[in-house]
């Protein structure tokens, strides 16, 4: 018996629920997304169906996004966490990127052992969720940005985010550090209009 794509994805989501619900994530059944939101931030875990999926086989990736309210106000992008997809967030990672340097896609069909698949998926998702959970407050995120180059976070974005968060926090030292770093990046790459305006507004 063949299982159509949607039930397979729903089944994967159902098993992921076991990991994410205890952490406080709320599952959106329609979109196969899980959200952990407060006033400052939102973490989104979502299953992404590949365009290459068909009626019998689902090809699925798992993405995790970190959305920050302060960055949204100061830099732009989606202004509310409602309805956010992982890739709408300011920083997102696909399961597998940290370990392998590229995201993993899983193929699931009628004969697939979903429990094993989700176990494998969760082993790659857990470090990302854990990282983003530790960055939910502006202060923690700023501290991280100032000290660590996060995976698949472009240096230009890293320093723009740090600058915006430092400005919001009124942290002069962090602001200076981030400004210098961002200006340094700007010597070799064209900074987006928004980042240039951010620097000018604070000057």
């Amino acid at each position: 018996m063949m299982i159509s794509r949607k039930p397979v994805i729903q089944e994967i989501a159902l098993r992921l629920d076991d990991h994410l619900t205890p952490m406080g994530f709320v599952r959106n059944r329609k979109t196969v997304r899980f959200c952990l939101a407060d006033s400052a931030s939102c973490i989104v875990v979502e299953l992404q169906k590949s365009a290459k999926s068909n009626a019998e086989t689902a090809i699925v990736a798992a993405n995790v996004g970190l959305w920050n309210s302060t960055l949204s106000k100061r830099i732009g992008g989606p202004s509310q966490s409602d309805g956010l997809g992982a890739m709408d967030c300011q920083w997102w990672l696909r399961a597998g990127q940290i370990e392998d340097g590229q995201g993993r896609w899983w193929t699931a069909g009628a004969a697939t052992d979903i429990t094993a698949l989700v176990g494998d998926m969760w082993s790659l998702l857990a470090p990302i969720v854990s990282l983003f959970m530790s960055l939910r407050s502006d202060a923690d995120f700023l501290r991280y940005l100032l000290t660590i180059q996060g995976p698949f976070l472009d240096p230009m974005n890293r320093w723009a985010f740090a600058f915006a968060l430092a400005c919001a926090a009124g942290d002069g030292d962090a602001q200076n550090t981030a400004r210098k770093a961002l200006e340094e990046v700007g010597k070799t790459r064209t900074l987006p209009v928004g980042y240039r305006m951010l620097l000018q507004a604070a000057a």
Partner: protein
Amino acid sequence: MSGAVEYLFNELLHQHDGTAAGQRRAMQLSGYYDIYDPPLEGIYPETLLVGGLTVKAGQGLLSLLATDGAVLAQREVAQVTLNQMAGNAFRDEIAGLFRAAGYQVETEVTKWTIFGRRVIDIDVWKAGVNLGGIETKWGGAVYNAAQQAKDAWLKMGGYVVNVVRGGP
């Protein structure tokens, strides 16, 4: 191997063999061939050479051929499906070239824009720096106005999308 091709390939094998053993063989093959690192002897949209067998697509038909060219199994496939398969194969081929050249690439990446979400075929990174996106177009596929508007908006944010075209 793309999901659609993989499925059709399995179906053709099953049709050819018609037994549970044939289906198991198809499952083994589909498990063996990783979708992003296909050990194919050659990959291009009209013909896929897989494990000594050939899958040939064209004129609304998908055929499984033996090494001597004999048709083992055949089925009709909607042209739109064939086009999609060709587009997916072309995208994966381009992504594979970048991977082989030492770039980190992600396929099917969504970008938020004020005009709505934009799905980028290939997102390219090198040494931790995001270099931009690639839109792959196979045959006469149109780079439409909505895509262009969204890409213009992304460009303002420092993300440049380049279009790569291929065709038979």
